[in-house]
């Protein structure tokens, strides 16, 4: 933040040191310096604001705000104060105050271009489109520059886009915007490309495609030069909208002649061709076919156009393009779909794809190219196809193990491609166990052999044969899923370790497979931009009880989302400045997509739950924690109806056949799965907020403040949240009964199914129901509530039983050793985590129960003393509560013992000593052992974290005494 450059101003010189301190992060000195300056120059307002910035940055928000308001009410008009206040308000996340500031400034200095422009930007930051429109116009009146006029026009367009009422957009905002531009056109005042772009945007949104076309093709269109093929692309879009297929077809032809590799124009060419055929389009008697030139309107023309493209391509000596060859296959597909016999004229797909392979088989993309045309085959052609391709793969003579290997990277790539295609065709899946094991052996041989070609590869490069390794891992997983043989899993993990050791930057070896089994540090992962990594990490770290790692990844995500909220408005403003008008709605949609991100809501909710589980009532009281996270039980801040699934699942490589690939149903199911889980978690969180508010009701003195912080819970919200939780649980149970399996390379299941089977959801619900009954008891008193007391006592008893059941489900060995083989049973860890989470909730609820029962008990004792009765009967609810607390004690002891014994046996376990079936090479054994060690240490880490938490919880049991 630099002071503005009026060197002569003595105030600038005085303020300089404060700016410097702030810039260097020395806020304390900045405050001191400001104080010093203010003693001498009381009216140096800017010094006050700078001090406020210092205060804000040292966490004294309230003081900062008060100080800033002292200056703001004076309605300053000096640059220094205005800029400093703008910065302060932005840091306070109060952009709306900036608008007030500049509204006052332009009132006082109505001719200032600068202040008007700041006002416009301030409105832009808060999305006040109508005021932007006015501010833009006001600017234009002061300084008639075109950009200002068009800022105003764009703000009208934004009003149209954001209007709830589509009719209002179409009949008022957009026509007004159109008229404003037309006025400039008539007066021949259009200057910039951006202005034409905006005109185009308006006409397009109004559906005035003919007019838009006239603009693009007319003199104004000549300004559209920045983007390559800008006019052509726009015309093409309009032809499609207008269904002018003749023009569409002719233009695609022209563009394809220019660039025969641009796929989008092949698609448009075919689309338009078949529309024209269906319409029996005929060329006019005389003159040109269309405004864009010659039109193809028959199958014969299309076939010859394709063949011409290929002839041209063949004539080239090198650098053949793939486009024409693939377009020919696309045409065959489309002709077949229409049952056109002419499809045969183009050739037999098997032969054409073979020729393609001969030409391009050594390119890594050959698999993605051919994959999309595999459905042109009948199933009985599959074997023939693969065999035919193998003819074009130069391999050496088979070695001792019967595997023939390639002599160079090109041959390797060809062989790899055939192998990938064979997997895509389902041939690998069709093999029996023995066949699959044989295949793995072969893939491994190719993998290890191929490493020699990459000896000089840099660390940052992938190995040529990496994909063999990954595919072998996939086959291991196929086997594991089919047979349940744990050994397959270990081999898979070992193989991935081996892959990593040769190609450390290949992310495919790192995730997501190992995560299903264990947690590992992920610093080696590449940072992925939109949180897929964090999504996976939170999911697995938390369920496996690695709370620190889970918190860390939640934090990372939250930082990302929060900074996005702040940053996007800055770029919206930039887009105005640079006239990138078409980007403005795009940025706003992007911001919404991120704000409505499922993962954002997940990270928010899980972060709060984690904080509570880890800290509340151990390091600080529950109500403090609830208050500090501004958790409001009445308020649901998750946009349930518009949650967006932003996961990028395409990042995971697989070559599974179509019927085993991820489909829309899986994605939908996964979204539903995650949403249900989120709903359960969010309701649980809000209910915990309720329990906290009940235990520590806001006292009347500062009730206003607590309500502001959102902890005042009405009993009604408890009731309603409970019934929502119950409903959601029912939905969840029904949902998990569907048991849809995701493909292994696809979305990961949420924690829902395991949570339900652990019994934690039901148990948490039961415990959260207790407060309702205790509230009743509080009103009724002990004397006339026998029935209620029995009810509560039974609830306590049943809760103890449920907890015991949950604990039983945690017992067993995390690494079960049987017949000299070990089996990871991570679900036991998950159950243990659910047990601990439930214990936390039960303890908070019990704490509330205690707070209700304690005064009841003491008043009972007082009564007894007065009457001097020596009654031996304790009211049932009191004894039930005491019984319950002691059973809690014993449960926690049991759990702690179990964790301890698991830690001991895990530490003692020598996994390396177990037989590793089929692994004779010592090097390979080492990799499998590395994987086993990682699992072992991951589980130990989990046990430690869970144990520590449970111990801390056990320590709070004392406070339950009444």
């Amino acid at each position: 933040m630099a002071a503005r450059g009026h060197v002569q101003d003595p105030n600038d010189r005085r303020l300089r040191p404060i700016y410097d301190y702030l810039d260097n992060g020395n806020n304390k000195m900045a405050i001191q310096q400001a104080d010093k300056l203010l003693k001498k120059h009381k009216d140096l307002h800017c010094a006050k604001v700078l001090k406020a910035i210092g205060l804000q940055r040292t966490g004294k928000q309230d003081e900062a705000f008060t100080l800033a308001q002292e200056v703001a009410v004076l309605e300053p008009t000096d640059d220094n104060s205005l800029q400093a206040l703008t910065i302060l308000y932005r840091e306070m996340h109060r952009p709306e105050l900036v608008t007030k500031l500049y509204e006052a400034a332009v009132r006082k200095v109505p001719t200032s271009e600068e202040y008007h422009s700041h006002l416009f930007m301030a409105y832009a930051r808060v999305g006040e489109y109508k005021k932007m429109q006015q501010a833009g116009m006001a600017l234009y009146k002061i300084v008639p520059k075109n950009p200002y006029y068009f800022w105003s026009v764009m703000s009208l367009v934004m009003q149209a886009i954001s209007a709830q009422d589509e009719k209002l957009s179409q009949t008022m905002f957009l026509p007004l915007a159109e008229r404003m531009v037309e006025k400039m056109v008539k007066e021949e005042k259009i200057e910039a490309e951006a202005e034409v772009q905006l005109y185009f945007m308006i006409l397009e949104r109004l559906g005035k495609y003919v007019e838009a076309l006239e603009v693009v093709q007319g003199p104004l269109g000549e300004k559209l030069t920045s983007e390559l093929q800008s006019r052509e692309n726009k015309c093409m879009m309009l032809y499609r909208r207008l269904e002018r297929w003749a023009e569409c077809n002719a233009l695609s032809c022209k563009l394809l002649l220019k660039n025969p590799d641009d796929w989008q124009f092949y698609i448009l060419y075919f689309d338009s061709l078949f529309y024209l055929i269906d319409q029996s389009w005929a060329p006019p008697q005389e003159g040109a076919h269309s405004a864009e030139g010659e039109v193809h309107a028959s199958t014969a023309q299309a076939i010859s156009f394709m063949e011409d493209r290929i002839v041209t391509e063949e004539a080239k000596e090198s650098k053949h393009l793939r486009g024409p060859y693939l377009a020919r296959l696309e045409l065959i597909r489309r002709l077949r779909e229409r049952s056109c016999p002419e499809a045969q004229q183009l050739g037999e797909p098997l032969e054409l794809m073979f020729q393609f392979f001969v030409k391009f088989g050594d390119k890594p993309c050959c698999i993605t190219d051919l994959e999309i045309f595999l459905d042109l085959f009948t199933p009985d052609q599959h074997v023939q196809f693969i065999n035919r391709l193998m003819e074009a793969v130069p391999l050496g003579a088979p070695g001792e193990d019967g595997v023939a290997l390639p002599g160079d990277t090109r041959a390797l790539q060809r062989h790899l491609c055939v192998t990938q295609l064979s997997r895509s065709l389902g041939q690998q899946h069709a093999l029996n166990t023995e066949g699959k094991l044989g295949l793995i052996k072969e893939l491994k041989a190719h993998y290890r052999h191929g490493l020699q070609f990459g000896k000089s590869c840099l660390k940052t490069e992938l190995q040529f044969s990496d994909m063999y390794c990954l595919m072998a891992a996939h086959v291991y997983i196929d086997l594991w899923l089919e047979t349940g043989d744990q050994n397959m899993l270990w081999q898979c993990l070992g193989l991935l370790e081996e892959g990593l050791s040769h190609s450390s930057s290949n992310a495919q070896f790192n995730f997501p497979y190992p995560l299903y089994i264990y947690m590992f540090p992920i610093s080696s992962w590449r940072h992925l931009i939109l949180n897929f990594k964090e999504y996976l990490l939170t999911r697995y770290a938390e369920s496996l009880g690695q709370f620190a790692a889970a918190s860390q990844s939640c934090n990372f995500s939250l930082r990302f989302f929060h900074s996005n909220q702040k940053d996007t408005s800055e770029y919206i403003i930039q887009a105005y400045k640079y006239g990138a008008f078409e980007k403005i709605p795009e940025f706003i949609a992007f911001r919404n997509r991120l704000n409505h991100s499922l993962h954002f809501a997940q990270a928010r909710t899980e972060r709060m739950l984690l904080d509570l589980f880890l800290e509340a009532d151990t390091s600080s009281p529950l109500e403090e924690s609830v208050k500090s996270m501004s958790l409001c039980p009445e308020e649901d801040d998750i946009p349930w109806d518009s949650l967006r699934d932003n996961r990028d699942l395409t990042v995971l490589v697989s070559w599974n056949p179509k019927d085993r690939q991820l489909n829309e149903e899986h994605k939908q199911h996964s979204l539903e799965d995650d949403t249900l889980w989120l709903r359960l978690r969010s309701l649980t969180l809000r209910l915990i907020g309720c329990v906290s508010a009940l235990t520590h009701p806001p006292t009347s003195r500062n009730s206003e403040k607590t309500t502001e912080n959102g902890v005042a819970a009405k009993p009604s919200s408890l009731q309603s949240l409970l019934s929502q939780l119950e409903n959601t649980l029912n939905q969840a149970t029904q949902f998990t009964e569907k048991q849809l399996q995701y493909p292994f390379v696809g979305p990961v299941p949420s924690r829902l199914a395991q949570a339900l089977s652990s019994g934690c959801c039901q148990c948490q619900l039961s415990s959260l129901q207790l407060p309702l009954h205790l509230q009743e008891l509080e009103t009724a008193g002990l004397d006339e509530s026998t029935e209620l007391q029995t009810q509560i006592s039974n609830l306590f008893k049943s809760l103890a039983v449920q907890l015991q059941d949950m604990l039983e489900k945690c017992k067993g060995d995390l690494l079960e050793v049987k017949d000299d083989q070990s089996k990871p049973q991570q679900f036991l860890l998950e159950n243990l985590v659910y047990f601990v989470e439930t214990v936390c909730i039960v303890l908070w609820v019990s704490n509330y129960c205690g707070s209700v029962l304690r005064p009841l008990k003491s008043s009972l004792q007082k009564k007894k003393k007065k009457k001097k009765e020596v009654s031996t009967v304790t009211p049932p609810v009191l004894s039930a509560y005491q019984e319950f607390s002691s059973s809690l004690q014993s449960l926690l002891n049991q759990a702690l013992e179990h964790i301890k014994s698991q830690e001991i046996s895990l530490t003692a376990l020598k996994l390396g000593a177990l037989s590793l079936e089929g692994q004779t090479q010592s090097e390979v054994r080492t990799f499998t052992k590395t994987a086993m060690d990682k699992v072992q240490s991951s589980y130990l880490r989990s046990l430690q974290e869970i144990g520590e938490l449970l111990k801390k919880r056990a320590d709070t049991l004392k406070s339950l005494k009444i």
Partner: protein
Amino acid sequence: MTTLRAFTCDDLFKFNNINLDPLTETYGIPFYLQYLAHWPEYFIVAEAPGGELMGYIMGKAEGSVTRDEWHGHVTALSVAPEFRRLGLAAKLMEMLEEISERKGGFFVDLFVRVSNQVAVNMYKQLGYSVYRTVLEYYSASNGEPDEDAYDMRKALSRDTEKKSIIPLPHPVRPEDIE
């Protein structure tokens, strides 16, 4: 066999397969938005027929016109491993050069890690030459030392005498470049 089109915000949700590459920088969202807001025409993505993103180029126009330094700059260029060896990077570079020509640039420049031999050789093939070395331009990460960059240039038609690409005799420090 590619669809070349303008990069949009939504592409940020699915370009991970390209950015997994260890030499491709993944910037914060603001960085990409800045380019989209200021130089949208310079941000182009290539899409495969199956919808996968194959690669992208991101660049800008900058420099003083009066000092003959107005030029196009390549900020990022990356192609996913499975779409390499197709000439895609060359195609994207050609487009960026064409845009820079239209804007009346004198040259196109880019920075590349000295160790990234594959890229350096490719740029040489495309007509670029090393104009200067920038010492310790890439700051250290993961315990590796700082790394120098080559500032590589190719003259555009406006620079008829190819003055802009005459190599500097001495390396420069990052703070000396504008």
